[in-house]
């Protein structure tokens, strides 16, 4: 299956390991990702927080480029995904925005394609049965808590993705690759998102609370699907934190893909845990 792929800025920078593990597992699972040529930043929080139309227009350029590819679009970053979902509606409802963007880009926009988060594609299109069959290195004895964060699941009318208070997709994926998914309190709590650089105090408090609850639930590590969630939980806890994996890294390891280059990039080193469980080979 071919998909139009929007990596987003984080996957080129601080979340490189999310990008490379995404490419690796998609290839292994028969998904062909065609990167949207010349994509731009979706505008992120700074766009929509300060100038509504500018935020929508920045995201809209990518949707227009994606439609040109004639494929459904897959987005790995939770925040970019949420922006595109909102902008797709804005482009349909706001004639001024659509008109100006069509003029700038020289292409009409119909919105005749689906915008999907990577989790949705892996879970609903590839499916757990296929994944189970492909697992060669089950992540036995690894106790994880699934962490969804905010905008993959919220608001449901927009994302059309799993339950917004009690989502199960990552839970079931964790079980499918042989690890244990623990029930816990904070699966949809907010990590403080883009306040990461501006209000370090707030993000430290939120990240600390979430990681503490994961520890209390008995987890050895956290599984996530958002670059900002990963960064905040991985970097803002301090010493004695828990490793925070992208679900794609876990899937990759279970599929037998050599993933050391991903794992070495984490701030909280996950290798001692994985080596102790014989899930990656030691030095």
């Amino acid at each position, binding site marked *: 299956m071919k998909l139009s792929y929007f990596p987003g800025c*984080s996957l080129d920078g601080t979340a490189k390991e999310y990008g490379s593990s995404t490419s690796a597992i998609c290839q292994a699972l028969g998904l062909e990702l065609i990167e949207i040529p*010349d994509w*731009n930043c979706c505008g992120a929080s700074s766009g929509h*927080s300060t100038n509504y139309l500018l935020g929508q227009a920045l995201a809209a350029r990518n949707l227009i480029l994606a439609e040109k590819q004639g494929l459904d679009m897959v987005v790995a970053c939770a925040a970019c995904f949420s922006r595109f979902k909102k902008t797709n509606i804005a482009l349909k409802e706001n004639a001024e925005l659509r008109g100006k963007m069509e003029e700038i880009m020289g292409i009409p926009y119909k919105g005749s394609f689906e915008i999907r988060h990577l989790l949705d594609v892996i879970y609903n299109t590839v499916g757990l049965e296929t994944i189970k069959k492909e697992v060669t290195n089950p992540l036995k004895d690894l106790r994880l808590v699934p962490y969804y964060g905010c905008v993959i699941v919220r608001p449901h009318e927009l994302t059309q993705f799993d339950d917004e208070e009690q989502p199960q997709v990552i839970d079931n994926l964790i079980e499918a690759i042989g690890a244990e998914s623990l029930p816990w309190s904070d699966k949809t709590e907010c990590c*403080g998102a883009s306040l990461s650089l501006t209000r*370090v105090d707030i993000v430290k408090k939120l990240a600390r609370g979430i990681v503490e609850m994961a520890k209390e639930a008995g987890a050895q590590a956290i599984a996530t699907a958002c670059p900002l969630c990963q960064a905040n939980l991985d970097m803002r806890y301090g010493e004695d934190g828990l490793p925070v994996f992208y679900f794609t890294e876990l899937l990759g390891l279970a599929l037998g893909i050599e993933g050391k280059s991903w794992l070495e990039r984490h*701030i909280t080193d996950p290798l001692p845990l994985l080596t102790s469980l014989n899930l990656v080979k030691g030095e």
Partner: protein
Amino acid sequence: MKVITIAKTGDEETVEPGFAELVQQISGKELRQCYHCLKCSAGCPINFAMDWAPNQIIRMVQLGLQERILSSSTIWLCASCETCSTRCPNEVDLPTIMDTLKEMAIQNGVRSQQTGIQTFHRVFLNCLREYGRMHEVSLLALYKLLTLNPFEDMGLGIKMFRKGKLTLLPSRIENVHEVEAIFRAFGESKRSKI
């Protein structure tokens, strides 16, 4: 604009009678149905750091307390996590209303104490205009310098660099002129000038 005296305390308060209608018109979101059940404020992960709770902001919009709202920290600290909008029994879209209020504050030159956040957004968008994408090293360095806090996160930055998480040189997209055209068409918002 009208100045009223609060009977109980004798304090004077400036009220803008048409403010709620204006916020509704700009945001395209209805807020009159809010009956202050406090679900938004109870679930808000950042409530503890805000000067006014989310529902108090909605109440103040309903009452027209424009000055207090536009200078509050709450509108800038909202992380758009959508917990409030998900749980609201009256489908009040608080994150979108918070965005509108931020935009109004900028358009009308109201400075809040959260100047760091305003600076961050400005630096972010300038970087995006220049390269078409976000270059995290430029963003980090410029932001920390402009907020006169260059050493905050220095240790973490070095650690991130060692782990290969930072790309030193920015890359510019090919058709950055299209991004420039977007900034020219939409960059100067006039929609929320009061």
